């Protein structure tokens, strides 16, 4: 397409713009959660996260110093000072101000206002004010409404709360380690078991091989929903009950068809010469497997490892059926987040942070090993 003169420029621009729009659309929700996890509860509920990048206009109600500080000069009573000093807050540049709650943005800094009969008021941008009154002022200081722009502000407190506070309802620390405990064995063991089976299916001749491969392709799509009750019953009967052993076994079983399928497809493509030469030189099948096939299959092993890792890390159903018992000691992060959605549905600072803690590890793995993931997807599907 690119080689036709005249059609290129307009269409290319349209392509660039539509890709940019699509990417923005796809990234926008995730960025929203990430940004929200760095904001305080007040900030989240007072403005949309997309506004947090920019300085926000905020209206504060301040007061001048008390009337006992008024001094008489040139026939009027004067109170001078800085509005921010009175309240003891950090100064923000004032854009507009007012003395009545009905019109909080009546004046710009430097203007003179008349809050009452015989009274004048001037406020500068940095909060310095001069208040004068013809009569001796009494009561509290004059109310002043100032509108200031607040710079974007982010905090790590939410992560502190979710990870280190030890608060039992919010804490993700335990769930994080539980998820890790589920994930690592459930990733490593299926690879090992599947690799041997895949080798047998790829390079050994025996009756029924084609049938077995067909059976594995069939099992690839069997919904794991079917396995819940029969296996929970089985686990209870043989004494495993609900616990890590059960969930490791379950993940091993559910990941097995894809593992064998991926690894076999890869191993079949390895050069026949190498394997036959090794056989002629007297290598046993076990040696061929460990010394030649395994090292050569590293890309396929890595592909499946990533799949299985993402799947076990992100899993909810298998964990709530086979792992989490009534005590909840073995809760995993996905379960914890669902609980938080129920108990803290409105507390976005906790929810967003907890969700991001659970998303962070898969995202790192994803971006670090994307190449293998893509390769695995292609090997697993385009066949």
């Amino acid at each position, binding site marked *: *397409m690119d080689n036709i003169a005249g*059609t290129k420029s307009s*269409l290319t621009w349209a*392509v660039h713009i539509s*890709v940019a729009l*699509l*990417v923005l659309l796809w990234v*926008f*929700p*995730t960025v*929203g*959660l990430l940004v929200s996890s760095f904001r305080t509860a007040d900030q989240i*509920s*007072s403005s*949309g*996260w997309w506004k947090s990048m920019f300085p926000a206009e905020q209206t504060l109600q301040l007061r001048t110093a008390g009337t006992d500080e008024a001094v008489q000069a040139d026939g009027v009573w004067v109170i001078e000072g800085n509005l921010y000093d009175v309240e003891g807050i950090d100064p923000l540049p004032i854009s507009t101000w007012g003395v009545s709650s009905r019109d909080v943005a009546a004046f710009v800094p430097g203007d003179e206002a008349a809050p009452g009969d015989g009274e004048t008021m001037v406020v500068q941008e940095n909060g310095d004010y001069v208040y004068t009154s013809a009569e001796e002022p009494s009561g509290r200081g004059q109310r002043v409404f100032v509108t200031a722009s607040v710079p974007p502000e982010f905090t790590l407190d939410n992560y502190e709360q979710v990870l280190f506070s030890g608060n039992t309802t919010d804490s993700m620390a335990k769930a994080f*380690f539980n998820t890790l405990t589920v994930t*690592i064995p459930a990733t490593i*063991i299926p690879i090992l*078991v599947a690799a*041997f*089976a895949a*080798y*047998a299916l790829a390079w050994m001749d*025996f009756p029924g091989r084609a049938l*077995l*491969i*067909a059976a594995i392709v069939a*099992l690839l*799509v*069997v*919904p794991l*929903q*079917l396995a819940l*009750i*029969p296996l929970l019953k*089985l686990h209870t009967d043989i004494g495993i009950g609900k616990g*890590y052993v059960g969930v490791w*076994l*379950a993940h091993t*079983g559910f990941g*097995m068809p894809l593992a064998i399928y991926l690894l076999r497809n890869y191993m079949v493509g390895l050069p026949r010469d190498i394997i036959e030469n090794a056989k002629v030189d007297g290598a046993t*099948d076990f040696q061929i497997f460990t010394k030649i096939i395994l090292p050569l299959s590293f890309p396929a092993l890595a592909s499946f490892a990533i799949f299985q890792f993402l799947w076990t*890390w*992100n899993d909810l*159903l298998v964990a709530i059926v086979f792992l989490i018992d009534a005590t909840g000691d*073995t809760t995993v992060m996905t379960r914890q987040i*669902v609980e938080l959605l129920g108990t803290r549905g409105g507390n*976005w600072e906790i929810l967003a942070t907890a*969700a991001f803690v659970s*998303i962070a590890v*898969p*995202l790192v793995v*994803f971006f670090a090993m994307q190449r293998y993931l*893509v390769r695995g*997807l*292609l090997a697993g*599907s*385009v*066949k």
Partner: protein
Amino acid sequence: MNPALQGLLTIVFGVGGCVAYFYFSNIFLDKVLFPARGENAGRNINRANMVRPWLFLFPALFVLGLYLAYPVVETMRLSLTERVPGGSVWVGLDNYTQMASEPKFWEAMSNNLLWLVVVPAASTAFGLLVAQLTDRIGWGAFAKSLIFMPMAISFVGAAVIFKLVYDTRPAGAEQIGILNAVWLTFDGGVWSVIVLKIVPALLILAFGAAVAYLGYIAVRPMWQSRPGPRMGAAAMILRVILAIVALWLVWTSVSGLISLLSATPPYGVPQTWLTIPFYNNFFLMIVLVWIQTGFAMVILSAALRGIPEETVEAAIVDGANPFQIFFQIKVPQIMSTIVVVWTTITIVVLKVFDIVFAMTNGQWETQVLANYMYDKLFRANDWGVGSAAAMVIMLMVTPILVWNVYNARKEMR
């Protein structure tokens, strides 16, 4: 014992055990059972080589059988029995009739059908669009990687992300969900009519027309007497089913179109998106489309790269415009890949559980089969009906299963 330590031990024992099993069983086979020496050396070597594949396969086959094959049979048995204290009794099809009498089941079925149509179609279409658009631009790889990213995010994480998108604050307060913030900018003017009425109406019309055409193609051969092999009964039934599904979808689109055009949207009022019946299904589907588009894109992008350059060049020489090249040269050549992507996403949709569980838990008419099944199994504690629901999911997967096996066998020959 500390679970982390237990995990570590399991890795060591599990991995060590597996390696030891494979290593020692091979040694046992070669040295003890059929030693390759003495008068029977040759025969023994052959025998050992006959047994060895099964040694390699045994652990995998054992796990597969126990965790995938056995449950299919056992679930079928459970769906025909009722649990009573101390055992179970045979009740025939009672569980299925009970399930069929529950409105919640039919709600789950019709929602699932809607998911089955919309999610694979939308994901594949978006995936194809992105794959084609990013094919020739410099930062295509970067763009693809960002659109692919949701694949790494759990369904639960995605549910939280989209709950924030759909969040609702009372009228007058600042909206913190982007959807409501955008919604409140519509005020019933020309712009609102274009975006909220005309564009969706056109989309629904296009969808209905496409489905009607597909249904027509499906039934056309039944009254056209064409020379050639007669159609088998199975093919006939399949075509009729396809036509019925198409009719139902056309009906849904027409009624959707009418309600869309006749309704006056509540402009200026913040909406609780997940509680609006029927439409909330689509807000849940968006989550899955968001996740699955990356998958479709990766695979279709590879397929597009695999198209022979000559075909495209020939089309350019013949004066085809970019749209003709895409729809008439490229898409037909990657049709088989599109079908694979479509079926893969279909399977994901049939099993979709986490999104509904975390976002609405089937309330407000968003029930789907997998969540219905979970409800029955673990909340109502009714194993019979729960197993029956699982069998329905299995039944819906079966055509894809058969098709996959058929293709795999064809390819191996």
